[in-house]
């Protein structure tokens, strides 16, 4: 097999964060089109922190003071192709901005047409969003000049105590050659195993190594696995309705130890096996269906059906966990 495949998945991180007294006051002030800094020794920090960065002493919300709204650019960089996570969807600058009255710099966006309009020491003022919720992006961006832009409307009626942060990352993960061969075997109604040359343990085919001996395993270590096995553990699930849940009656998921191997297939469905009869030690066999083969698909595993053989009575079966 010379080509590899990858799978893409997007993970969302919809966080809700509590803000505490200092950052909560800062965010509340943003809704009122104001910036707050905090006194820390001889300095005024903006954005405000809850502790003195030098001494770690507590800083109190009583020490918050208004700063800005205009300020001076202390450093800047031009973002010519913004990412999906950036605050503006056209080229812009990130800048360190020391707001008037503050001794430290706020990092935010500056919206100008080109980097030619930017310089260290330039004066900028905020362009407020029309609707502000108490979030760092209530400032859409800073713009050149002394006069705040945009905004309007009233501030928050209640102090802001929480903020949303909804991020997403798209991951592209390669499917390893071992996994592809194991999938191909499944599509033919077979289970592929890998036998470690050092310890002779047999693993399910997708894994590319023996975790006991830290040895790489490949096609030369492949073995055919049995279609029969023994239930080592099980659970009965009372379905709770949620999006995507199609089960309505209690159903079983079982762990199956394949004969002649150390392979346990976890969380497997059962076929023609009443929930009340499912038990550790029961002998089962794989049931495949070929309904998708006519349309070019592969054979699929339906689940595991009792064979009628006598149970395996080994009391240690339940201790086989992987």
């Amino acid at each position, binding site marked *: 097999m010379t080509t590899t495949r990858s799978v893409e998945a997007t993970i969302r991180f919809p966080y809700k964060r509590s803000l505490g007294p200092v950052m909560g006051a800062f965010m509340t002030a943003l809704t009122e089109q104001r910036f707050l800094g905090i006194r820390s020794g001889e300095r005024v920090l903006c954005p405000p*922190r809850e502790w003195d960065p030098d001494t770690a002493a507590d800083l109190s919300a009583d020490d918050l003071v208004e700063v800005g709204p205009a300020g001076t650019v202390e450093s800047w960089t031009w973002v010519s192709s913004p990412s999906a996570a950036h605050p503006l969807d056209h080229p812009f600058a990130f800048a360190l901005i020391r707001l008037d009255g503050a001794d430290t710099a706020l990092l935010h966006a500056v919206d100008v047409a080109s980097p030619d309009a930017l310089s260290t020491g330039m004066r900028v003022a905020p362009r407020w969003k029309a609707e502000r919720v108490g979030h760092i992006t209530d400032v859409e961006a800073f713009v050149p000049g002394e006069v705040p832009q945009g905004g309007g409307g009233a501030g928050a009626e209640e102090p802001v105590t929480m903020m949303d942060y909804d991020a997403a990352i798209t991951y592209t993960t390669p499917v390893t050659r071992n996994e592809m061969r194991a999938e191909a075997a499944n599509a033919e109604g077979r289970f592929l195993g890998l036998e470690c040359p050092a310890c002779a343990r047999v693993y399910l085919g997708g894994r590319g190594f023996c975790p006991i001996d830290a040895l790489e395993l490949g096609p030369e270590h492949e073995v055919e696995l049995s279609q029969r096995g023994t239930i080592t553990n099980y659970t009965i699930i009372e379905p709770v309705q949620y999006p995507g849940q199609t089960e309505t009656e209690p159903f079983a998921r079982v762990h199956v130890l394949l004969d002649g191997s150390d392979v346990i297939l976890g969380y497997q469905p059962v076929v023609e096996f009443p929930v009340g009869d499912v038990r550790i030690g029961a002998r089962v066999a794989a049931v495949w269906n070929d309904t998708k083969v006519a349309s070019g698909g592969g054979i699929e595993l339906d689940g595991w059906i009792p064979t009628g053989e006598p149970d395996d009575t080994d009391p240690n079966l339940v201790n086989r966990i992987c």
Partner: protein
Amino acid sequence: MATHPPDDIAIIGWHVSPMIRRTELTEAQMLLEVVNGATAHAGITNADVDFTCAGSCDYVAGQAFSFVQNIDAFGAWPPKRDSHVEMDGAWALYEAWVRLLVGDLDVALVTGSGRSSTADPDIVYPMEMDPYYLAPLGVDAMSFAALQARVLLDGGVVTERQMAEIAARCRRDARANPHAQVAGDFDVDALLAEDYVREPLRRHDLPPITDGACAVVIARADKARELCENPVWIRGLSHCAEIHYAGLRDLRQAESITRAAKAAGVGDAPVEVAELQTAFTHEEPLVAAALGLGADVVVNPSGGPLAANPIMATGLVRIAEAARQIRDEGRHRTLAHSTSGPCLQQNLVCVLEGE
């Protein structure tokens, strides 16, 4: 042969993986190669390892508790004492060093691994920033670096030409490094003629995006002597952090580097070679000055992170390269530096010596 107190700890083996833009291997498979390579280099087997400590990042891997699967690469049966840091492998080495100082274990295996090709680093990086003021703005590593670069340019600490010269030197030195991803001869004027990527940073000021891993084996003095003819002694190891929010710091300084260097004893004797985790060209003069390095110190003969930048392993590779300078290049005293966080927020300094 010098005698070493039993609490002295030495590096006895290491292995660096190929450094490439996009691997087809899983992170555990990447680790498998460097773990077996490092134990073979140390002349031991997995059975000799008493403690393992890995550095990796779930946001990079795209999976919660991704390090649990990576343990498969350690051959961890019978079960081993294990730990993990959500940091560069250099900090995993720090934890392993502290663990061996307890005295009841002799040999530790340390790894760093990252597959940055799995997602867009510009999207992943902001997730690790201050969640109130920075992450919602999507501030990425390049932008932070560019903001610090301009402060250094405005302050006369470095020029754009010096930055291009650093890039050209690193890429030239990287030609001799089989693990380098970016290497070759480049003309400084030609580099300076290129467009900015994040003004004032051009392509050559930035590290490549790299998939890679590294493993290092360390041992207490008596065991190191027993296993190894030429251990590389960890003479000093320390790390120090400053405040996360870059706007609250003086970006012309790197106080945490200076403190870590002092604690690690950098100034106690001359250093011949320094492997620095300077992933952006402008960071090199700042870090070198903060460490107190003289002009005669050879910096990043491997090409450094500008030649290969396997996030979560870049710092541990610096330690392996600094050890290699002693074992293979005849140096006596070398230094490795690792960094974490925006604009050099947290810094680790490791001083190594031969016999």
